[in-house]
């Protein structure tokens, strides 16, 4: 290495040192992280070790969501009378005790009376 080469090398090193000194702390931190990731391949293994439990947890989450979606569609077990009453008459989702009553009363009165009882007229007259 002659003198010119030595000067050239010193000049470049000086420029490099100045460039490093003027770099922001954030950029330096990012470079450090990337350098560490590139020089430690074992980290990949540990990340992968976390990936599978994470994926399994996601799968469990999907299962739970699936269960939750199914629940609202599931009708309550229908009693004999509720199904009998619902064959063209009343709501099949009613409670069994009420179903028993409805099965016997749905055909007792004209359905228009029941309809009227749900009207604003009946509300105003406090029919209870």
């Amino acid at each position, binding site marked *: 290495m002659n003198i010119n080469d030595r000067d050239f090398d010193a000049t470049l090193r000086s420029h490099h040192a100045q460039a490093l000194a003027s770099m922001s702390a954030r950029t330096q931190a990012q470079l450090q992280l990337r350098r560490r990731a590139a020089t430690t391949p074992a980290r990949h293994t540990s990340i992968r070790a976390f990936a599978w439990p994470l994926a399994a947890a996601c799968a469990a989450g999907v299962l739970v969501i699936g269960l939750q979606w199914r629940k609202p569609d599931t009708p309550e077990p229908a009693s004999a009378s509720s199904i009998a009453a619902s064959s063209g008459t*009343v709501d099949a989702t009613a409670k069994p005790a009420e179903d028993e009553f409805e*099965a016997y009363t749905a055909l007792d*009165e004209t359905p228009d009376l029941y309809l009227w009882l749900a009207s604003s*007229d009946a509300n105003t007259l406090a029919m209870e």
Partner: protein
Amino acid sequence: MKRNGIRRSLLLALLCAAPVLAQQTTPDIQPAWEQLSTAERDLLTAPIRERWNSNPGERARMLEHARRWQAMTPEQRMRAHHGMKRWSHMDPEKRAEARALFGKMRDMSPEQRKALREQWQAMTPEQRKAWIEANPPQPRH
């Protein structure tokens, strides 16, 4: 690599099985009416059958009411169902009042109904009783 393959397969199987598992863990869903056996249908219609057989004089009325239920829109049926719940909480005296008021109001104009509502609200219990006696509920049909 082999272990990873097994893990992937298990995970995939779990994901695919989720809907099936979800379905299997829900309570039994009863089949549609058409899928029921004759014995099951007989069991389910027993209350109506008993009602029908024990009240020969009311069969025509029951049939007419069933036809009316059938003719109602789903929305009307839902409201009538609410009215029926209200009916279940009413004592015999209130039911007599309801029958009388309903019978009277069903043929009234909106103005007449409004007038009766106001008149009713202004009445004392004794006056209401007298009104019911003067306007007895129409025979059930």
